Structures are given as C-alpha cells and as structure tokens.
C-alpha cells in the first residue's frame, strides 16, 4: 500500500441537508465517523484531497481531527446522480492490527483457451468479500484465466489470495465462465421467442371485474 496523505478534518455541529449543501459549496465533503462503540462524530474533509485519496484506491485514511491524527477505514462513499461528485463518506474507526471484511475488485488476466475455441467469456463476479488486516487490504485480486476451456468456470474458492487474507464470499460462486457460443445463441433465440406478439397488453383491472 502506498503512502497516504493526512487529511485535515474540521468538526461540524450542524447537520442536515442544508448544512451539507453549504459545506459542499465551500469545497468540503460531509463525513461521518463511527465504530468501536463510541459516539459518531460529524466532520468535513477537503474535497480535492479526499478525491485524490479515493482515486488512488486508498482504503485507510489518515485524518487529523481536533489535533489528533487517526487512521480510518473508508466504509461507504456516496456519489451524486451522475456518479461523478463525492457527496458523503462514511469512515470507520479501526485499530491497525484489526482484521476487517472488505469488498475487493477481481481482475481477470489473460485470454482463456476456450475463447480461442469459439467460446464467450463472461465475468459473473466483479468483487469478492475478503477478510484481512486493515494495513494489508489488497487493491485487487488478479485471477489467471488462461487455462479455462469452453464450458469451464473459475470459482471464488480458486482465486489466489495473498498471505493472511481469507475469503468471506461463497467459495462456490462462479467468478468467470467460458460459455459455448451455441448456448449463447440458443438463449437469445428463447428470449426472442418469449417476446409478446400481441399489439396490446393484457389488462389486470379488467380480469378482476370479470371475476
């Protein structure tokens, strides 16, 4: 994990939509800090610094609040309707030797043998839940899929995880599958056959009155 900035947070007494909007207009992001059975604290972080940290996939943020610097785990990030702007962040209190459960991205590496044979690769799972130490959260899990033949799949249990990292998600859940092309075509044909050919849909209300 790369070095992280220490973000300066300012405490905030006022909460609510209006206050949050005022904060955002001043280039701040409202933040809530909770966990470890302590009272939740409302704070605000600088938007630019926070966005930079999240852009670099940092999960653990160093935050200076009331003259005290602590490490917090990013629990949730809320974005605006277009998914561009951060509007709120949840931070959780953690000890650096604590084990936490986090979602980590799965990245497929290589082109499977089955694709060369005419199959179609489908990634069914893009994130898996892992349990690991706060300080060693992997940025992503890379799965080598070169050996997959047509009709074969890779399950979450077969993913190669770093040391001291364990899988929480269902080990039998398929991560990637190489489908035979004829199956794909058959599925599409069924979908098209199921499409209604009537010009007008059936009425729910009319049925009830007849009954």
């Amino acid at each position, binding site marked *: 994990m790369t070095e992280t900035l220490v973000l300066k947070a300012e405490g905030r007494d006022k909460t609510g939509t209006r206050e949050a909007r005022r904060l955002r207009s001043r280039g701040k992001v409202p933040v809530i800090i909770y966990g470890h059975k302590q009272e939740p604290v409302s704070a605000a972080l600088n938007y630019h610094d926070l966005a930079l940290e999240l852009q670099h996939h940092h999960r653990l943020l160093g935050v200076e609040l009331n003259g005290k610097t602590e490490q917090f785990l990013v629990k949730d990030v809320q974005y*605006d309707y277009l998914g561009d702007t951060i509007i709120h962040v949840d931070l959780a209190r953690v000890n650096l030797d604590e084990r936490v459960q986090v979602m980590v991205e799965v990245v497929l590496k290589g082109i499977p043998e089955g694709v060369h044979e005419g199959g*179609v690769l489908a990634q069914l799972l893009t994130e898996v839940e892992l349990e690991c130490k706060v300080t060693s*959260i992997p940025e992503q899990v890379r799965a080598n899929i070169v050996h997959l033949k047509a009709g074969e799949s890779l399950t979450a249990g077969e993913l190669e995880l770093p040391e001291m990292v364990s899988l929480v998600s269902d080990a039998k859940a398929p991560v990637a599958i190489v489908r035979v092309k004829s199956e794909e075509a058959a599925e599409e044909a069924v979908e098209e056959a199921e499409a209604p050919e009537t010009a007008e849909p059936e009425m729910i209300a009319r049925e009830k009155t007849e009954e």
Partner: protein
Amino acid sequence: MALMPKRVKYRKYQRGRIKGNATRGNFVSFGEFGLQSLGPGRISGRQIEAGRVAATHFLHREGKVFIRIFPHRSVSSKPLETRMGKGKGEPDYWVAHIKPGTIIYEIGGVPEDVARAALNRVAHKMPVRCRFVKRRHVG
C-alpha cells in the same frame, strides 16, 4: 419486436413531466461499461430495440448486452384525419421515462475500446444526450 408490457393496470396515461435526477439505476451494475443518459426524456420500445440491435450487430455476438430500462408507459395518439374531441386516442406505442443519470444499456465481456465503439453507435439512436461510463469498483 419492440418491448412492451405483458399486463398493465391502466391502458392510458397522462403525459406528465419528468422532474429531478435518477436516484435508482444510475450506476453500472451488471456489465463493465454502460451508457448513461444526461438529460430527461422518453425512450420508445422501438428505440430501445434499435439500440440493442446496433450493439449486438457490432459486437458480433461477443460479450453481453444488458438493457436497464423498460417501456412501462403508453403514449396514445389520434388517427389521421380525425376531428378533435371524441375522447382520448388509443395507445400507439410504449415509452420508458428516463431521468438524467439513468443507465440505459450495459455491456460486459468485451474490451473497453470495443464497448465504447458499440455504445457510441447505440447513443446515436437515443433521443437523449448520453455518455459512456465504466463500472466503479469499491476502494
């Protein structure tokens, strides 16, 4: 075949207005790449189908195309050369009401450049301004 509902409670709708932004269906959740609307609008079943055909033809049956919207509302129209009055017209076609931010299509199982080219072709068939978006991963 254009999309339309199988069963409905009411045949005819009032036009209404599309207000606000999308708070649901506004992030990529099935594929890796998506087409996001930037404005409000009504997308008809035929336009949705045209977009699907454009994408699947371009992809040559590679990858998977997901349609994230459905035309639930009917639009009525009066027959040609008819005088005004005599009640509301009959349902003509079906539309999906789209708010800014809605993900209209998603594509998975293909590289980014291919998905971008496919969705660019689809965007030309849409009655609203659209943009290409990628799935956001946690962390």
